[in-house]
């Protein structure tokens, strides 16, 4: 928007130009303020996680204690600098994170940054699929529930939404696995792809997102395999989130449903479904977008559980693996990374909300 204005012809009336430039400037300032607000969020979360994990002692004792003799352990601790005052270590850690260095895992000696990139793409893929499922299922059904409020479809949908919400994602995953993979044999039990497909897709030059890599090979069997593996995890995680979306859309559409302009449209003879779709839904969109943004962040928590259930080799299953191994450097890195993703998502959501609704900007 601002770029257009800068290139605007000179013969425009100066007053109009000044006015439009002002509104463009306020949006720019809003974006900047929101961007800067990300910093305290990430900072607080990283700090919290750092000190909480250090409450139990240094990471080396946690990971290797009992497996190494005491003198070797002390040597390793001194080598890694964990015997220095905690505040020095903290400042050093902040500096490292700032330069993108998340440290090295203790148990298998890999750079945490590399772990994040390798497995982050898998988690990203899962969350995107799940989000698509959640949006496709949750939003239209929420609108139906609002339009048929207090009649039986609404009752059924609301109970279903609460049921989705009440079901832990890992239990839903286990039931899905039992029914569709074991009993019916329609879908694979776990993993992101069969061994053969996995080898073909992991040649190193891929994006790490299996569906794109499989499409790039042009081999239909790989594409089918990848999609088959993704169905259950995506539907499991997606349906749990869809329940939340359904409830949200229903509540907000009903909220705008009682507004005078909807009554006005109804008195002009607009049908109930068109009323929901065209009149009541749009104003309800802003809170929906905000909550969807927050849900994306929360889906990362659900992804941890889904990945463990389906042995989907992403950030979440790595987190579980490192937790079991007590490798707190890796845990700290993964959690810090998720904090950054969460803050970035919230930033994007704020920007989109401001873009749709000018009243949000200040």
């Amino acid at each position: 928007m601002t770029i257009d204005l800068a290139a605007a012809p000179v013969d425009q009336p100066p007053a109009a130009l000044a006015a439009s430039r002002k509104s463009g400037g306020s949006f720019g300032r809003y974006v900047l303020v929101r961007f800067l607000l990300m910093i305290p969020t990430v900072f607080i979360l990283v700090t919290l996680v750092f000190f909480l994990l250090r409450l139990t002692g240094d990471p080396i004792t946690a990971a290797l204690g009992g497996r190494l003799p005491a003198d070797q352990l002390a040597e390793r601790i001194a080598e890694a600098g964990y015997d220095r005052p905690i505040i020095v270590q903290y400042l050093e850690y902040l500096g490292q994170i700032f330069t993108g260095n998340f440290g090295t895992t203790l148990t298998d000696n890999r750079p945490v940054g590399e772990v994040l990139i390798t497995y982050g793409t898998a988690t990203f893929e899962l969350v995107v699929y799940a989000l698509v499922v959640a949006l496709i299922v949750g939003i239209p059904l929420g609108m139906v529930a609002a339009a048929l409020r207090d009649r039986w479809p609404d009752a059924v949908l609301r109970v279903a939404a609460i049921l989705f919400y009440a079901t832990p994602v890992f239990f839903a995953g286990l039931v899905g696995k039992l029914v569709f993979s074991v009993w019916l044999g329609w879908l694979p039990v776990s993993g992101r792809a069969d061994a053969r497909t996995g080898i073909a897709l992991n040649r190193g030059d891929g994006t790490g997102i299996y569906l794109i890599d499989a499409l790039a090979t042009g081999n239909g069997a790989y594409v089918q395999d990848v999609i088959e593996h993704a169905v259950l995890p995506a539907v499991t995680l997606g349906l749990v989130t869809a329940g939340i979306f359904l409830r949200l859309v229903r509540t907000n559409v009903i909220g705008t449903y009682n507004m005078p302009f909807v009554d006005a449209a109804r008195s002009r003879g607009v049908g109930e479904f068109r009323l929901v779709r065209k009149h009541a839904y749009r104003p309800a969109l802003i809170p929906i977008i905000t909550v969807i943004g927050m849900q994306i962040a929360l889906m990362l928590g659900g992804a941890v559980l889904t990945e463990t259930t389906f042995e989907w080799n992403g950030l979440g299953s790595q987190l579980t693996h490192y937790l079991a191994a007590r490798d707190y450097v890796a845990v700290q890195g993964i959690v810090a990374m998720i904090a950054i993703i969460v803050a970035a998502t919230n930033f994007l959501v704020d920007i989109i909300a401001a873009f749709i609704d000018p009243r949000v900007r200040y």
Partner: protein
Amino acid sequence: MAERTLLDRLPVVHQLRQSVGLQRGMLVAGLIMTLVFLLCAALAPWIAPYSYSQLRGADGVNFGAQQPPSADHLLGTTVGGFDVFSRVVWGSQTALLVVVIAVLLSVFIGILLGLVSGYLGGWVDRVLVVIADAIYAFPTLLLAIVVAIAISGGQSDLWSGVMAAAVSITVVFIPQYFRVVRAEVVRVKSEAFVESAKVIGASTGRIMFRHVLRNATRTLPLVVTLNASEAISTLAALGFLGFGIEPTKAAEWGFDLNRSISDVAAGIWWTSIPPGLAIVFTVLGVTLIGESLNDLADPRLRARRRAAKSRTPADAVAATVPTAREELGEVQ
């Protein structure tokens, strides 16, 4: 409105009388399910045929691992050789314990922080708000994991396990209570009665706890029920990720589900379905109560008999608008 009796003023009873149709059905169903859960927890020693850590029967013979359901073991045995039915029943006790501790702790700390922060304001308020917002935006489960590590360091007997789970859930929930109470306190503190209390010289502490607090807690029962259900899910998720309580110390549904992942691939259903259904049942019961209370507290969502019957748009407007206005107290 008719005069309300003492019974009527109890939180749930009042809402029960207020509700109609589906909403009443949901509330009643939720209450019954929660009651079953509470009874199960209270009477676990009498309901469960065996103890949660029992591996062999009275005759000294081992139960055996992964035995299918039979007369001796209604729901079979787990991979570790425990009786599934007994562990499901005992699990309700663990869940109840964690929920009660977590909710009590987070309500207490959350209210205190919200009250102080909202009433006193200043930089303490600003710092607390920023911290609460940061925690609030973070996936609850991940934070709970980190806190669980910090507290127990992997130790997991009954009390340290229960406390670790409860405190991790507490830390996650404090920001929610903090936000709710703080918003109310900020609203209430500018009311005339607070100013009059100041004028007659009441101390800050007295105003905070006697005048502001009493008027700032009206939405809390609702948040408590919604959080209680979330606490059960979080406990199960922690258990599922391996932060459970050792099976010999207590029964925990999430831990049992984790152990059943490999059973599922082998087609063994009885180790995973019962504890999973127990979680769904309990969370569903508490959520139904919370949802109904939430809807009943919001006049826009409360079902109304009159509006539903009207047929023409004009009737609908005539029927809904005045009541809605009245209930909302002319909002906006």
